[in-house]
């Protein structure tokens, strides 16, 4: 049998319990806040500048690293202006997922899609693999090939299982970005 405790004392003993609860809350909130990126880190993450762009870079996507939906596509500051000669293998139009570059992406040779910085079409989306897919022009036409990406390359509603020759007007998706292929 526990000793009798007066009700008056018990009434005031509820405060230490409440205080403990709020100490827990304060600690947890501070830990959560310290795990958030600082404004400086956030700025550095959103504009991965400083790295000189490879000279082959015709376009590059920069933008929200998380969703990818608000990504914008713009010419990298250091890259030379796109060659003026007409593309031999047609062009890609961006129809969703990033702000399309004027005139689309010309296909002059093989094009690599991915998150890595050495990709001519860089898509900073966590759902895009480092080297995600590639377009290879050949005598038969332009072939789209998935490079074993985790979330796949999608031709229309179908996941790409093997390389496919693109027809005029086909659209395909890498991550959240959707492209349409034009032969001319």
């Amino acid at each position, binding site marked *: 049998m526990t000793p*009798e405790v007066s009700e008056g004392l018990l009434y005031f003993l509820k405060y230490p319990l409440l205080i403990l609860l709020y100490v827990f*809350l304060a600690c947890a909130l501070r830990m959560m806040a310290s795990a958030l990126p600082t404004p400086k880190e956030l700025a550095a993450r959103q504009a991965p500048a400083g790295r000189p762009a490879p000279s082959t870079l015709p376009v590059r996507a920069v933008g929200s690293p998380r969703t990818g939906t608000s990504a914008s596509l713009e010419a990298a500051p250091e890259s030379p202006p796109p060659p003026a000669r007409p593309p031999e293998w047609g062009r890609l139009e961006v129809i969703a997922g990033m702000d399309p570059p004027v005139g689309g992406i010309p296909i002059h040779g093989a094009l690599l899609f991915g998150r890595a910085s050495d990709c001519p079409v860089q898509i900073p989306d966590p759902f895009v693999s480092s080297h995600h897919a590639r377009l290879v022009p050949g005598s038969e036409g332009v072939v789209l090939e998935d490079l074993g990406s985790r979330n796949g390359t999608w031709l229309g*509603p179908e996941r790409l299982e093997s390389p496919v020759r693109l027809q005029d007007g086909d659209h395909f998706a890498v991550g959240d970005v959707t492209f349409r292929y034009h032969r001319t």
Partner: protein
Amino acid sequence: MSERRSGLVLMALVSAILVLGAALAQAGLQRLEPPSPWPSVGLILGAFWIGWLLSALRGRGADFMLFPLASLLCSVGWLEVYRLGPAIGSPALGERQALWIALGVGVFILALLVPGDYRTLEDYKYTCLLTGILLQVAVMLFGTEINGARLWFEIGPVLFQPVEVVKILLVVFLAAFLRQFRHWIRLGLLSAEGRLPRRALFLLGLGWAAAEGVLVLQKDLGMALLLFGLFLSMFFLSTGRRDLVALAAMLAGVGSWVCYHLFGHVRVRVGAWLDPFSDPHGQGYQMSQALYALASGGLDGSGLGMGRPFLVPEAYTDFIFVALAEEWGMLGALGLLMVYMMLVTRAFRVALAAGDEFGTLLAAGLATLVAWQTLILVGGTVQLAPMTGITLPFMSYGGSSMLANFLLLGILWRISAVGEVSGGD
């Protein structure tokens, strides 16, 4: 401060709250001669520390706050359950709840230790869907009826509530299904082709039918709300289609209106919600008692064991939030809501850091599940929404919900562990 030390600080605070609370509750209940709380407290603390140690040792980079936050909710919930036990004539309630918490932590540990990758769950999506539907149908046909609702199976001495497991199965199915067809849903509709969004409409129709079916056949308003909320949230998270979500919400509105006019039990529920004091001794009894309890709690509460939360029917399960608000006051209740908020925020963080689409959708789905469930239940007990019979995650008395919630926590933890490891590729 390293993550491990942060976790240690949080766990120490949880232990202090549990020990102090147990002492206060025992003293506050002295006239009722309650059973000693200490064996149960020892069992719970042992389980918590083993669970925390294992998760801290195994998961480098895994989320270190999920487990401490959940254990705080469990502790506070246990204190109220222990305190209510002697007052409602079943003094062993606290001991049983302590056992369920320990078993729940066991499920969490199991989820940590199972070898393999959580992504294999994706291959079992139709199995999950089928199991879920079968469990729901089976409980409708063969379940034990309690308080006019068939929601339980009686297995030996315990009652098993399959809904708790079905919710998680449903999240797994939706995450896998939406992962597969997300692009399709996004691309194919109202786009240049002018095709009808058949698959999206099929999916939304399915969710709508499931929610209405639960409402009509099982008379389970809370589950129907939860199912539909979960469904719409996940659909929106994966596709970003506002128009279809709005369409589905409108359909749900029409469905609710029809149900209100067709079925008596829905009208009774809504009536008890909108105006409990018109029938304070009948249909509105629970709600009006709950409002009295909230009012008498005031800002800082009556103190553990000093209030009269046992006057509210079902205070230890559905209305545990009201019992808490009476004895811990508005300060305690708001603090607890903040803990829920942090838990959900951390779960969304896990979703954002997950390396693959399935992991993101699964974690976000589990986060919305906890969020909706808390929202619906707390809203129901403070007269913001119709009163419903679902449990408050980690707090309400009940074995099925405790085990299921720790399973959910374990899955989240697994996703966070993989997400951090493979983030650098």
